[in-house]
């Protein structure tokens, strides 16, 4: 993309294509390119320097100032996992459970998706894989009741980390968002400080709607971090740049596959590498 000697207009257009096709969105891309153009007015930058300047800007946008992910800071440490349908919540919880168990934590999974067909069975299999405790009720029961029981059990059993799986729901459904707020309220009522982490799961293949999702879930619950899944595909997940800039939400983990070990901590350098090649 930069190997030919084009005009600076060409380079900027090429960079625009790189950013937009990585799902950074027009607004974020134009803002970034606008800043780059200003620098061009003060010094003659070649295409490689332009690219690096852009990389640096995006990198600093992603370096969000937020408290670290610290599961040892409370006991039981409660993680609530939320997001729209099909993004990878249940699978990510399974992976996280495996990782925490690997770090010597006693983990409990709470099956608070009481709605979707076989959601409880799906999480049960992940709990078995990771050797986690498992709390469930019957399908169609109240998710708040599941969470209540899980927290009582966690306190009694000396559990280190509780991870709560919730049903996927579109952020546009007010009653479902209310249900989630209620689940969170029950948690804080039963355990001071809970939930200690509210993780929003975003699918890397999602376009600009991811920003609306982040805004809505954040407004409703106070999201503390993001898990960006399916980065093993060809999508770049650039939506997190605008989200970091606007909402200051850190990406805690990324999903790079469907197996228990396919969870990584977010690495800005690798992320930028995938976008800029």
């Amino acid at each position, binding site marked *: 993309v930069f190997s030919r000697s084009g005009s600076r207009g060409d380079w900027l257009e090429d960079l625009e294509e790189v950013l*937009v096709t990585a*799902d950074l969105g027009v607004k974020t891309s134009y803002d970034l390119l606008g800043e780059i153009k200003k620098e061009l007015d003060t010094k003659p930058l070649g295409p490689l320097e332009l690219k690096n300047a852009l990389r640096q800007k995006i990198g600093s946008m992603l370096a969000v100032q937020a408290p670290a992910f610290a599961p040892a800071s409370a006991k039981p440490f409660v993680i609530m996992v939320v997001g729209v349908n099909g993004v990878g919540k249940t699978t990510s919880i399974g992976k996280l459970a495996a990782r925490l168990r690997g770090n010597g934590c006693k983990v409990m999974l709470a099956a608070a998706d009481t709605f979707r*067909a*076989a959601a409880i*069975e799906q999480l049960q299999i992940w709990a078995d894989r990771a050797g986690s405790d498992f709390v469930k009720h019957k399908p169609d029961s109240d998710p708040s009741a599941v969470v209540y029981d899980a927290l009582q059990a966690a306190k009694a059993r000396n559990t280190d980390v509780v991870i709560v799986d919730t049903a996927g729901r579109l952020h546009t459904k007010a009653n479902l968002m209310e249900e989630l707020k209620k689940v969170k309220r029950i948690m804080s009522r039963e355990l001071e400080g809970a939930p200690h982490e509210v993780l929003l799961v975003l699918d890397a*293949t*999602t376009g600009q709607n991811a920003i609306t999702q982040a805004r809505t879930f954040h407004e409703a619950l106070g999201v503390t971090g993001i898990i960006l899944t*399916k980065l093993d595909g060809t999508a770049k997940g650039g939506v997190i740049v605008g989200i970091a800039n606007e909402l200051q939400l850190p990406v805690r983990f990324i999903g790079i596959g469907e197996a228990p070990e396919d969870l990584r901590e977010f690495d800005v350098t690798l992320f930028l590498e995938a976008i800029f090649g």
Partner: protein
Amino acid sequence: NLTDKLSLVFKKVRGHGKLNEKNLQEALRDVRMALLEADVNYKVVKEFTGAVKARATGSEVMESLTPGQQFVKIVHEELIQTMGSKQAELDLKGQNPASLVLIGLQGSGKTTTAAKLAVWLRNTKRNPYLVPADVYRPAAIEQLTRLGEQIQVPVHPSRVDQDPVDICREAREEARAQGRDTLIIDTAGRLHIDEELMDELRRIREAIQPSEILMIADAMTGQDAVNVASRFNELLDIDGVILTKLDGDARGGAALSIRAVTGKPIKFVGVGEKTNALEPFHPDRMANRILG
């Protein structure tokens, strides 16, 4: 929204009557921005605005007394033209039992859509048989089995230790024996770049010669929609697309991208989590939604 923005651009025109190069450029830029914000693919947007510009520089707009209206009309027409102007149907003739194979990325809504299609087909007096062919995802077979119980449609008793190709063959035999006329086969979510799993789909197709291969795509998919759709289409020659989760507020530009790169019709849209939430695709409604 775009119509408002365009009317602002063309308001300036009314004073001078005809369109000039500058307001045409501005209008094209507004269209481009609206489509990109709606997640239409970058290259698809370029081709689309190119097509609009070609028509807009002709006498149709330039000589018109209401160039603004003409321009908006062209944008709408071009969009509906690309989306497919008529309603596409399922082609289930010629085979007994007929079979639909649902394919797509992880989490796009295949299993749920399989159940929805069963309800849809039963409402058209067909006799569907659901076939769980996902042996990888934890509790995938249970999920479709549960849905089948909810809607009272029989579900093939697949097992996780089976090969999906064998499942499909056995299910077809079973459907014939039971007098079911339509198989709805739910496959595992997979990446378009996973050669082994893409080959599995090719083997399924070879084994049962499906009436339709339907790609299930999430309406909130971004720029990657073109990569995914073109690869699935290239390897399997899909018959149509079902766009899911349109009950959200994603603009759905992926619909335009997918149609533009595959040339295949979007046949249905998923508009909710319940098994009755399936509707036929309306290109004009989708065009309005994308334009914002």
